[in-house]
């Protein structure tokens, strides 16, 4: 067995190589917009997944309505750009704040629900929003909103000739968010979130206001997802309820995290790295038959993961050596959740 020190060295070398590859990749992909776009989307979805993971993975509150915050972020920023001519970067701030506030507003009543009840509540809220936006002409209704084509550049957050800038922005977002999540889950806040996930009663009995922590997680989660919505709006320059408020987006966010490993730092990235290429290439390969083969595979895959690897692919790295290493590097929680005697009797 290789010693921990050698493993760390190997890991670091690999990480540096990967970073270098990611940084220079666009140069090699100049004539391949398909791959460039796929990587950009991969980074974006990884950030989305990080966002969902804060509430769903660390705090243990499974939401299937997070697409709402993506859409709200996209709409708030786009409306500010269209109606008031503001900069999309201001839109980013507004989107984050609005989404976070909305998340808290929804959380206050909904966090009283547990388990499946909560999941359904999130579904209902998201569906209502979808219908409301579709029927609301001021925000474009079903027709959607088209962003004005401006001069390209960082200032307008628009790039037309060359999509490489989007790639780097998305990559930078991913690096920033991953680092932030890494710090968060090592902090006291992260620890309490995980405790709430594992045994909310116990945490409350210790005197903590679990509602406060859940709302905080929701605010962070929603705000982050909202920012991703702005990125999407500036990338496609067109939004409508179908593209930014759909259920499939909510499900995809959750699925990526569950696939990769909920409650881990690398899980969202791993999940996105597998799911995105899978869906893109399966579309290119299977398209034209109208037979939905890719969705068939999707469904099967979800079921298989649920049954055999509910902890996600990160659990594949669960041999003691890897686990110790991961703890040392901060990728896994420093202290494993403790199991009391009573846990044996719970079905969870």
């Amino acid at each position, binding site marked *: 067995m290789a010693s921990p020190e050698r493993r760390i060295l190997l890991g670091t070398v690999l990480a540096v190589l990967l970073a270098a590859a990611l940084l220079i990749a666009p140069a090699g992909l100049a004539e391949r917009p398909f791959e460039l776009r796929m990587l950009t989307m991969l980074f974006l979805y990884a950030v989305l997944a990080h966002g969902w993971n804060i509430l*769903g993975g660390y705090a243990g509150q*499974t939401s*299937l309505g997070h697409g709402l915050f993506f859409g709200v972020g996209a709409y708030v920023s786009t409306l500010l750009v269209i109606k008031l001519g503001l900069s999309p970067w201001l839109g980013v701030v507004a989107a984050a704040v609005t989404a976070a506030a909305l998340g808290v507003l929804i959380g206050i*009543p*909904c966090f*009283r*629900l547990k*388990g*499946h*009840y909560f*999941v*359904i*509540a999130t*579904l*209902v*809220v998201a*569906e*209502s929003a979808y*219908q*409301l936006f*579709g*029927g609301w002409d001021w925000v474009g209704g079903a027709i959607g909103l088209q962003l004005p084509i401006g001069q390209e550049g960082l200032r307008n957050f628009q790039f037309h000739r060359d999509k490489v800038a989007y790639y780097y922005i998305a990559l930078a977002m991913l690096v920033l968010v991953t680092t932030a999540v890494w710090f968060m889950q090592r902090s006291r806040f992260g620890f309490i979130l995980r405790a709430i996930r594992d045994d909310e009663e116990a945490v409350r009995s210790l005197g903590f206001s679990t509602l406060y922590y859940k709302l905080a997680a929701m605010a962070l989660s929603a705000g982050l997802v909202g920012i991703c919505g702005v990125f999407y709006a500036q990338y496609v320059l067109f939004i409508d309820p179908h593209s930014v408020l759909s259920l499939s987006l909510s*499900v995809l966010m*959750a*699925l990526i995290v*569950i696939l990769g490993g*909920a409650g881990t730092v690398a899980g969202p990235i791993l999940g996105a790295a597998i799911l995105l290429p899978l869906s893109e290439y399966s579309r290119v390969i299977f398209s034209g038959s*109208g*037979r*939905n*083969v890719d*969705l*068939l595979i*999707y*469904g*099967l*895959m*979800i*079921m*298989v*993961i*649920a*049954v055999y690897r*509910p902890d996600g692919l990160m659990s594949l790295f669960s041999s003691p050596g890897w686990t110790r290493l991961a703890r040392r590097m901060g990728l896994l929680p420093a202290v494993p959740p403790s199991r009391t005697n009573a846990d044996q*009797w719970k*079905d*969870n």
Partner: protein
Amino acid sequence: MSEQLLLQLILSGLGMGFIFALVAIGLTLIYGVMDVVNFAHGEFLMIAMYASYLSYRTWGLDPLVTLPFIAVAMFIFGVFVYYVLIRRVMGAKMNAQVFASFGLMVFLQALAQFVMGADYFAIPNSLLSGVVNIGSVILPVPQLAAIVGSSIATALLYWLVFRTRTGRTLRAAAQDRQAAATLGINVDLMYALAWGIGAACVGVAGSLLSNFYSVFPRVGAIFVLLAYVVVALGGFGSIHGALVAGILIGLLQVFAGFFISSELKFVPVYLLYLLVVLVRPRGLFGRI
């Protein structure tokens, strides 16, 4: 607004409400017994509708005739799904349970499109078509059948759950799995039974629906969200709760659609749901 119009709206609302209730009853039973939401419930409905349509197309059998057979077939299907999939996630985290039935939903929808294509199919002129005239008010026969069918199904279910030995065993397993096991109750079998009965109920709903609604791969999605709302509003695990909530929602959407807006007629329904959740998280009638 005339009396006749009011009466007409009420009757239309009741008709749809009973259908919503019937779809939801199976869902609430499964949840009541085992704390698991079947996210593929809409697809069970879709399968029942396809079965009804295909029996009509292949053998010329009217949906009313095939109804009992579809109920039995769906029962078997429900048990099958339990043993093959759900059983394996019963001890797992909630996420795993949610995604197990969610994956089933995606799979079944895709399978339907794969096998049958995305086309819309509808049964022309079934036995249960036409209308019943009550004075100057009209009640379409399929809705009448739904009212009758739902009432019978609810009554039957009640009798089963509260008046038979099997029902008692079911309730015991629902209340306290461990204790029931120590008493020698085969909890596994009870769970399978719950899934079977739940599937049979939604199978009856699908069979009745196929009299007047088109079947296509996504038809389940249209009814299932409403079914969740009905169950959550009525109280998870409460059969009469599902009935009351279904009727309430049926009436609400007809009146909202008439007086406020067709486009947003379900928004008051969702708002009602959120209000009840805020005030009384367990729903109107709580547990079984």
